[in-house]
């Protein structure tokens, strides 16, 4: 497999952070100073192929790194960006969540012009989208955590507490 991102995860060049599922690295060819890639450690091409838990973690880490950009680089803004698929400008075959530090008048072109879309087209899009949202908010189940067995001490204490309350209530 030929993947520059996987390669960089392996050789650790520019790696700023990593844990079990995620790596954050300085972009080798940044669009702005401090441009960071947050990527799943496991090779995944498209956003939708990333497990729910991991995409959630990626956003949380991206937010922390965004804070670090404000604090350590003294920038005035940050963008979080996913270019998902070729028409969206995705360059690597490894899905990337970009954190891009922004400075006033930095000349970056990360904005868009609104399109004139008629009411009918809007409604069509609305209907089509709504037909497909039944599973949104239903997340992949994580492995169950081992159930914490209560120490006998704790139970005793609770019982005592209940007894105590019971006594209070009984005249």
């Amino acid at each position, binding site marked *: 497999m*030929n993947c520059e991102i996987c390669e960089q995860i392996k050789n*650790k060049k*520019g790696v*700023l*952070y*990593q*844990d079990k599922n995620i790596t954050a690295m*300085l972009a080798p060819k*940044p*669009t702005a*100073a401090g441009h960071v890639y947050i990527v799943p450690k496991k090779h995944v091409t*498209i*956003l*939708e*192929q990333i497990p*729910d838990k991991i*995409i*959630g*973690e990626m956003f*949380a*880490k991206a937010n*922390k*790194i*965004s*804070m*670090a950009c404000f*604090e*350590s*680089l003294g920038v005035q*803004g*940050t*963008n*979080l*960006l*996913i270019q*998902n*698929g*070729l*028409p*969206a*400008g*995705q360059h690597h*075959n490894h899905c990337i969540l970009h954190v*891009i530090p922004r*400075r006033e008048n*930095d000349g970056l*072109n*990360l904005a*868009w*012009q*609104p*399109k004139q*879309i008629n009411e009918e087209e809007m409604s069509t*899009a*609305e209907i089509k*989208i709504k037909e*497909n*949202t039944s599973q*949104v*908010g239903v997340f992949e189940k994580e492995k169950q955590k081992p159930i914490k067995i209560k120490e006998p001490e704790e139970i005793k204490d609770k019982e005592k507490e209940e007894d105590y309350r019971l006594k209070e209530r009984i005249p």
Partner: protein
Amino acid sequence: MEGITPEQLAQIQQQCIFCQIASGKVASKKIYEDEKVVAVLDINPANPGHLLVITKKHYFVMPQMPDDEVEHVGKIAKQLSQVLLKALKLEGTTVFIANGVAAGQKAQHFMMHIIPRKEGDEVGIQVQPKQISETDYDKIYQALSQGIKKNLGDITGLEKKSEEKTEEKESKEKISEEETEEKEIEDAEIVKEDAEESKPKIVIDERKKKEKKKTEKKEKEKKKKNKDKEGASLDDIAKVLGA
């Protein structure tokens, strides 16, 4: 949000159009809602189906949000992107968040854009790579490392080696399993052909046809599997990127 009294917050929420949209006091084309966020169609869309995901609580920027809400926003981004791909038969989506005016933020309320993308749609949003000198790279690396340590703790490279090895082994085992299966099918077909005792040339042609059919069938099955599982043709989207 530090230094803001509850009264001030109430006032901000009353004046914030996105708080009003989130609470339903201002009408919108709502696509999705849960306890943390609402997703609506953007009234100034970059493309038809352009979605805004808005938090129900008023945050000006993402760094003010607690982790659980940020994680939720990430999961919703994935799912709504998938919905758009399927519903509008797209080849891609752009997920975009701006923190601060310098980043292009226009509203006073946190939001995430999910923009449907098609080839040649002229949306813009270009991440132009720039060359950076080694010294600048190192300087930025040092500065950012400090900030990240402060915000995320020093956990670079602490992952357990043993875990990685097991994962690798598992995937290798899977591959070899698939290979054996394929070989078994092939062997079975050769036996069948021998039994038929056809003329050699025809056998070859037949075999070629069979092989072609087999690969076609396999691909179809693969596609179907993916469609069942993922909805949109993620495989195709991934394929054009050379996955």
